[in-house]
């Protein structure tokens, strides 16, 4: 677990710049439109009631306020949103409770799309993407996992099966065709 925690929580340095006054120069016009383009379609509907923060399982553990991230989006404070940590588990509890029927998780996903294109990529994404190309799954198979699988009666991960290399190739083709490899910087991993 120590490994996973390190991967998921420490990667992105929080570079929140504490400004005393937020002026026009810090706002990104059309930021909400950009978010809508990447799937966060109802971002402007939010009335800031805070219900999402209250039900978010993450927000009880670390300083992560769904409502306030949505406010940054509405306001156009792009650099603040880029500094948020990628901890949303897309459990959709916020969506379930939102009285305005918004899906905040979609906004979080849209923010990741934008961040990646801005070159703000947490290291664990690169690790996961590399794993995906190498092993066909985002988590590297290791003995510990194999042990748990055996205990659960799931058998080994079929890396030795003949179809396995074909599957890996297909993944590589998809990763390359969608330009995902160049976006996250794993071109050298993709062998076609």
């Amino acid at each position: 677990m120590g490994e996973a925690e390190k991967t998921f929580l420490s990667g992105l340095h929080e570079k929140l710049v504490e400004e005393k006054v937020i002026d026009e120069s810090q706002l990104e016009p059309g930021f909400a439109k950009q978010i809508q383009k990447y799937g966060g379609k109802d971002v402007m509907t939010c009335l800031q009631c805070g219900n999402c923060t209250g039900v978010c399982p993450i927000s009880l553990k670390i300083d992560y306020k769904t409502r306030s991230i949505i406010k940054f989006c509405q306001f156009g404070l792009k650099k603040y949103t880029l500094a948020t940590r990628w901890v949303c588990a897309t459990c959709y509890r916020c969506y379930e409770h939102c009285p305005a029927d918004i899906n905040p998780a979609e906004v979080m996903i849209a923010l990741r799309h934008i961040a990646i294109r801005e070159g703000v990529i947490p290291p664990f994404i690169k690790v996961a993407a590399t794993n995906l190309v190498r092993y066909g799954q985002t988590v590297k198979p290791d003995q510990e996992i194999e042990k748990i699988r055996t205990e659960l009666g799931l058998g080994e991960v079929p890396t030795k099966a003949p179809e396995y290399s074909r599957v890996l190739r297909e993944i590589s083709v998809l990763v390359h065709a969608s330009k995902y490899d160049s976006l996250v910087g794993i071109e050298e991993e993709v062998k076609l």
Partner: protein
Amino acid sequence: MPSPAPHERESEDVTPSESPGESKQPRIGVFICHCGSNIAGVVDCGKVRDEAEKLPGVVVAKENKYTCSDLGQEEIVKAIRENGVNGVVVAACSPRMHEPTFRNCLVEAGLNPYLLHMVNLREQCSWVHSQEKDAATQKAVDLVRMGVSKAAKLEPLEARQVPVEQATLVIGGGVTGIQAALDLAQMGFKVYLVESSPSIGGRMAQLDKTFPTGDCAICILAPKMVELARHPNIELLAYSEIEEVKGYIGNYEVKVRRKARYVVEDKCVGCGLCAEACPVKVDNVFDMGFGKRKAIYVPFPQAVPLKYTIDKENCLFFKTGKCKLCVKACANEAIDHKMEDELVELKIGTIIVATGFDIYVPMKKGVYKYWEYENVITALELERLLNASGPTGGHLVRPSDGKIPKRVAFIQCVGSRNKKIGNNYCSRVCCMYAIKNSQIIKEHEPETAIAVYYNDIRAFGKGFEELYHRVREDYGVEFIRGRPAKLTLDPEKQSITIRAEETLLNKITEREFDLVVLSTGLLPSDGSKNIGKLLGIQTSPDGFFMEAHPKLRPVDTAVDGIFVAGCAQGPKDIPDSVAQAKAAASSCAGIMAGKKVEIEPLTVTIDEELCVGCGLCEDMCPYGAPELYDREEGGTKARIVEALCHGCGTCAASCPQKAITARQFTDDQVFSELVSALARGSCRNGDQKGPVPDGPAEEEVS
């Protein structure tokens, strides 16, 4: 300008013939309105005018910044007179807005008012196509071309006058219905007030005090209820339902079902001996389920009429066939278990719908645990707990153990402003009643800690903001901006912990309370669906009855002679409800004082020669206007009861024989419009050879 000698002079001088049916040489006047920038900001009105001028039959085409202004109207009158116009097209706003205005212009110029055709360039063109100016202009040209071809085929019609019954039916006996009935009665009109429950008073009778002044609700309502019961012009039909409504403005026929009380109203003196004798105890509905009442009951001590009613579902006699203790107790022999429902027929001129509202009931599996935690109650339940004549005599205690709560939370916007459950609207009263109730609690128990969980505080009325300030400054009520996410129960203390983000602090908070009050929103009353169906009046998307115009006709409905007031039209507080009641009453009085009312002649006619008496029209008509009859010379035919016809055209469209014609929407007129609409296609397709037709109107009209 010397007063015109309208009709005759026009026909002598210019118009060759105006009698209907005969072919006339169309002389059309087209008047295009800019509506300030509403239309002209999008549509190139100059171009539309130029195109209109070229259309066949058009003798004059003008544009005006505001056609509805005095100047614009004068221009129409002048143009009609000078050019011998016999058909007018006004291309402006919706006919619902200004059709009467421009019809008057035609009358003033000596034309039949029904020779007007309105083309809607605002709602149906400029407002909806504001991003596509060129296309909007092209569409405007098309619409005007269609309008001109229809105007050429319009025929003069005569409006009819019918007498108005001097009586109003008020549906609903809450504060709105009571006020409307009193106002009309004082003006000298007969009023029938129909209320479905055993007593009038409505929701206001349940409240403790009213915001922002703190008047006791029943203390200010009860005198009105008594006055109403005593007024010679008012007939109170309590415990009654509307069964059927037929007819039209000035001449409604209404059937009312007087439900059996099993107590003869004339004999009951309201002494209450029967209730003392009654052995059955049930939850008191008026007290929102707190406390008990008997199976024979009056809902509350100030009830009007003060007549007892047997609750048939719970009465032992109706359940087992035995008991009748109440009969023995009653000295006046008022109780009659054999009583049956009675149907009363009323002749009515105008109707006021004041069906009020129902309270939103929190969801069974909801986050706020209304159905699971005893100490989570709704605001109306709190009103009863605070009320001096309520189940606790006005002492606020919490339901679980009867102890005085030391910490009280209000949760706002429960069932309002919530897209998930489809109630997008603000209920308008919850902020203020929560603030008012927190003040009352503080007055009862000054040491109580009160927190209000809110999204926005809407304290917009007279004296509201001042009350909001008072509870914060003088009473120390805490306001937390955030919607609670989770309520957890401490089973031992029966206290409830609320988790919510205090959005202004940007922190998640957890606070413990002894009592949680849900500020539940307002819904259209349950019975209003049926009333709406019976009356043929529409509802807005929120389910409340729709007014004819949101600003200028706030209490009118789309059906003439039927008005809506109070919370039936949308959530509102008591002053607004009373104001609407007065508005509706004066609107009714305006119609009835005229004794007669004009009925639009836009109805249908049946050609008896073509009619085969199949009766399809009778089945299709939503208003019951067509009827089949046997002719003396034999054969069954359909005829139209014109007074019932709304001119909707459903029968005309469905008649397999094409025997039915809708006036001003004849096949000839509609098809000429269609042909004109399609004419543009050939203009646009550049590959078409030959002269570009300006519209087929050319051959159609001449």
